[in-house]
């Protein structure tokens, strides 16, 4: 069983144009920087990207948007990106906006082998249009379907050679559910350690979900809004 690959290029080598990808991260926090760079270099296009956000003009998924590699974004919030806006308004880019909790839960449903779940968010709004509504205990819920992604690409803090992953702080966000949901899951980590070094009680994503893993390089870990107080 060898899940360790040399680097990002090898990890994404078989991602074809037209694929549906899940990409972990919230804003620029916890995004798979190395894999995004490799996808930009590889030049695949017509991608459908399931990701809470779409990066900024010069970082994150924004780099893939700049290269016109993305056909459709499925996200909860896509501000902070001028090129995104241009492509959207010109019709080059398709966007499906999904409430953040629904986005997370549709990923989770896929990872848990549940084809669909009933969720509250969006009832009575345009998000509910065309969706099946069902009442349970006096409350209306929307039937929401599990996402179907060819690849999930996540970035973790630590990982081991068996594919076990541990995240740090709020960089965890969508990544565990996406890692569990992808047909093929690729994990880049800041620290790759031998099997047995991570505490088995504190694994966020068990290795069974991870097909390929590598230690990423030169993490920039850009901060979108550095907010501080005086000492």
């Amino acid at each position: 069983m060898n899940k360790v690959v040399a680097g990002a290029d090898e990890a994404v080598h078989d991602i074809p144009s037209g694929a549906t990808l899940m990409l972990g991260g919230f804003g620029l926090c916890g995004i798979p920087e190395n894999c995004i760079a490799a996808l930009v270099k590889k030049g695949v296009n017509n991608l459908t990207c399931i990701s809470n956000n779409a990066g900024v003009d010069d970082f994150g998924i924004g780099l893939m948007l700049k290269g016109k590699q993305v056909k459709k974004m499925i996200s909860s919030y896509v501000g902070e990106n001028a090129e995104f806006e241009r492509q959207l308004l010109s019709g080059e880019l398709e966007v499906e906006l999904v409430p953040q909790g629904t986005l997370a839960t549709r990923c989770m449903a896929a990872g848990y082998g549940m084809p669909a779940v009933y969720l509250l968010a969006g009832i009575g709004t345009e998000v509910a249009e065309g969706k099946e509504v069902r009442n349970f205990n006096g409350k209306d819920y929307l039937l929401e379907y599990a996402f179907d992604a060819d690849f999930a690409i996540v970035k973790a803090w630590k990982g081991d050679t068996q594919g076990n992953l541990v995240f740090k702080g709020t960089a965890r966000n969508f990544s565990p559910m996406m890692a569990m949901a992808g047909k093929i899951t690729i994990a880049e980590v800041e620290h790759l350690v031998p099997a047995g070094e991570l505490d088995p009680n504190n694994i966020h994503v068990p290795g069974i979900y991870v097909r390929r893993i590598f230690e990423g390089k030169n993490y920039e870990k850009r901060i979108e809004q550095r907010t501080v107080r005086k000492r």
Partner: protein
Amino acid sequence: MPLNKEQIAKRIAQELQDGFYVNLGIGIPTLVANYIPHGVDVVLQSENGLLGMGPFPFEGDGDPDLINAGKQTITTVPGSAFFDSAMSFGMIRAGKVDLTVLGAMEVADNGDIANWKIPNKMVKGMGGAMDLVAAAKNIIVAMQHTNPKGESKLLPKCTLPLTGVGCVKKIVSDLGVFDVTPDGFKCIEYAPGVTIDEIKAKTAGRLVIADNVKEMAV
């Protein structure tokens, strides 16, 4: 004098009770954290995956792996816990968050709220707002009573696309405090120097004045 943003936040902070788990939205709601009453212990939830959010970091600090739902650098307090986005919205949906404070473009007198989309403008998305308003058991809206053109934002019916239906329980605006009741907006407090007539003039939705309406203590 209508309240300023800090005063709106300060008034909302008085709604906090000891032991509350609270989700504060972006903007004025974020300021509420600065006015938590002494002796009241609340835990702040950030829907990107944190319970026990602390203040912004000191200058020179700031961890890229530690941000709030507004993508700002933050800190944690002792007893905090990180979790994934599915669990975060799970606890919101399951009604474990006691109070949600958020901003709004419009609120209707039946509790409908619109705060995510303006037709013919670039739509950035609803983020977690629809999940929060659909599930939270107690929602307070922090908002200006009127828009920059002077038009009321407390309406008989929202004109903008809805974020959620019948969910707002209370509004603290620059003019006063309003409970959302079956009779419409019920004014229970007015800002110092603001008259009931001004509130009536600037509220388009159904408005009732509480018998025991009083001047807000700010």
